[in-house]
């Protein structure tokens, strides 16, 4: 293990490798800074270009982008009161009031340092967790993997925003879409309609670009104007930033506790940073000596939410690497990258490719440190990205998206992308869950494969294995949780009304 850890660090001596980490983090900063454009959009746009790179460089580019998008989002959150990303909403509660009080640099310094410390802790936790995860992964069979995938789908469907039934529909639809094309066992061409284009299944890249990238540009085009609704953002001197950076260490307890909670929530599929930041913010407020100051520009609030945001990455990466179950929508796209790059998540990532796993974890830390420095130095200019008018942003990005979808030099890929853009917009407008659909789409083939393997090797009662039973009970519990919560809420409301 130590050898793999050392080998992972050696990659960072290679200038070519560092260049891709740098490019990834720059892309992450840009997508983070621009409100409404998340790292999901960034992944969808850069996905096709990444495949031309060797696995190490491709993965460090993607990890670099993921690790710093929160940091980029903190810039607009603190300076303009517009959360750059959904993961920065809790930072808004104290970051923006602090900026309004005339200390934007201090708020930015605190948020950057809290993020970096969150990443330092996540790397430490990851190093501790990998040996445990290894033992767990090595003991699971196809039947357990089948139920783990099912639990992952249930969690993402039920714990994410919106209607639970619509979340489940999205997951089932994603699974169904993954079945298009030739069946591995029988060779039957399923749902191809006689088309050779669909024989190998619906292509991944145009599907993803259509679901996530194109709808963002259509939305921007429909809305017009600029991304930012605020006229200007101001940042005063850098001394104030440094004051914020050093001040973070005064709140080391909140920093550590929020990182632990962020990491743990990251492990659970479906519980994103959007949830963990508020959990941490709430706990920090409850345990603070000055809870009354929260929401008025109090540093502890910024430290809690920003630490949780960043610590989450290590946790969600662990679930994705060890089990092949993406813990979040961004990790679902990361899983897609693994598969296309020829890497199989699961035991192999903790044995044969352990150095790659460590490399990704270390990339989180390196990228966060470098990004914090870059962001602090360039914040006044970065915020200008929010003021690019839609009339320039839309056509240029649209062209870039179409180039990305032309991965296989197939005209029908563009048609697929546009169809999925329509589906993506409709799903978004009618409350369906796009990340769950893409998760089902990625996991569909594995889901079917493990099902048949379990059935053939352990018979029709394969679900009676102890771990399987626990997973089935957990799935049923989470399926029942939301309706039960709603029923209790309704009863309480009726009592209050009476």
């Amino acid at each position, binding site marked *: 293990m130590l050898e793999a850890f050392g080998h992972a660090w050696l990659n960072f001596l290679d200038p070519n490798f560092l260049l891709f980490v740098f490019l990834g983090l720059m892309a992450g900063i840009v997508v983070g800074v621009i409100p409404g454009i998340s790292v999901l959009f960034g992944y969808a746009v850069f996905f096709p270009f990444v495949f031309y790179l060797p696995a190490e460089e491709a993965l460090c580019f993607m990890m670099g982008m993921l690790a710093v998008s929160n940091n980029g989002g903190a810039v607009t959150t603190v300076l303009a009161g517009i959360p750059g990303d959904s993961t920065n909403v809790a930072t808004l509660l104290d970051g923006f009031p602090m900026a309004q009080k005339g200390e934007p640099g201090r708020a930015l310094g605190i948020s950057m340092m809290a993020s970096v410390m969150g990443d330092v802790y996540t790397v430490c936790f990851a190093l501790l967790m990998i040996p445990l995860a290894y033992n767990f992964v090595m003991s699971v069979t196809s039947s357990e993997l089948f139920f783990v995938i099912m639990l992952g789908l249930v969690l993402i469907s039920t714990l994410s925003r919106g*209607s639970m039934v619509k979340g489940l529909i999205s997951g*089932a639809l994603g699974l169904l879409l993954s079945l298009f094309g030739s069946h591995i066992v029988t060779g039957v061409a399923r749902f191809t309609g006689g088309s050779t284009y669909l024989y190998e299944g619906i292509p991944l890249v145009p599907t993803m670009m259509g679901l996530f990238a194109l709808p963002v540009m259509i939305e921007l085009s429909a809305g017009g104007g600029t991304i930012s609704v605020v006229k200007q953002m101001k940042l005063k001197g850098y001394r104030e930033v440094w004051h914020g950076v050093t001040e973070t260490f005064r709140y080391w307890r909140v920093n550590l506790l929020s990182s632990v909670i962020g990491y743990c929530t990251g492990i659970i599929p479906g519980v994103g940073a959007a949830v963990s930041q508020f959990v941490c913010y709430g706990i920090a407020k409850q345990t603070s000596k000055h809870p009354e100051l929260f929401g008025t520009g109090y540093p502890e609030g910024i430290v809690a939410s920003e630490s949780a945001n960043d610590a989450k990455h290590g946790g969600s990466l662990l679930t994705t690497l060890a089990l092949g179950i993406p813990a979040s929508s961004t990790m679902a796209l990361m899983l897609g990258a693994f598969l296309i790059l020829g890497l199989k998540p699961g035991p192999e990532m903790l044995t044969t490719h352990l150095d790659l796993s460590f490399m990704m974890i270390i990339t989180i830390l390196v990228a966060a440190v470098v990004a914090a420095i870059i962001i602090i130095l360039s914040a006044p200019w970065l915020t200008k990205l929010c003021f690019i008018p839609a009339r320039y942003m839309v056509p240029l990005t649209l062209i870039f998206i*179409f180039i990305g979808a032309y991965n296989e030099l197939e005209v029908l890929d563009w048609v697929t992308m546009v169809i999925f853009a329509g589906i993506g917009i409709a799903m978004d407008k*009618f409350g369906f869950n796009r990340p769950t659909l893409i998760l089902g789409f990625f996991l569909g083939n594995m889901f079917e494969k493990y099902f048949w393997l379990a059935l053939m090797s352990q018979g029709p009662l394969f679900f009676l294995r102890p771990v399987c039973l626990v997973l089935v009970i957990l799935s049923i519990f989470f399926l029942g949780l939301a309706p039960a919560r709603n029923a209790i809420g309704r009863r309480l409301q009726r009592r209050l009304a009476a």
Partner: protein
Amino acid sequence: MKTSTKTRLSGSSISLILIVAVGLAAIIISLNWPLTSKLLPMILGSALVLLGAIKLLDEARKKGKVAKAEQPAVSQEGENEDTWKGYPQAGAWVVGYLLAIIVFGFIFASTFLAFFYTKIHGARWAAAIITTVITTAILYFVFQRFFQIDFYPGILINWITGQRIF
């Protein structure tokens, strides 16, 4: 007037009807396949039909309650007429761009898009021309020449040069 608002299906309900139809289609199409191939499509198709129907009934029940309370008919997802404002035009740009690519090829279509989109959305002549020139130059020199991406030339060029259309 009152009757028409009551009977009008919301977008969410239409999408759920489509989901049920997709589920049914999956079941019907997979009926003739061997068991190994059809089991999962049939299970998923049934799940879609069942979940779609449950949600549809739930929405109908909620809509009934809202109608009884004489409140404006807005679905629980907050979907209303305003949420689609500007989308048909934006969608038309994307579809138009796709059609232009198929007919004129990627580079020409992108040049048209860069120019007409910026100009029609209020850019000055100079800004629109500069954006178009820079975009075309990047596409041609960086992507086509440097990265050697063989962009789709379009039906027109293929027809003129006597090549395969797609």
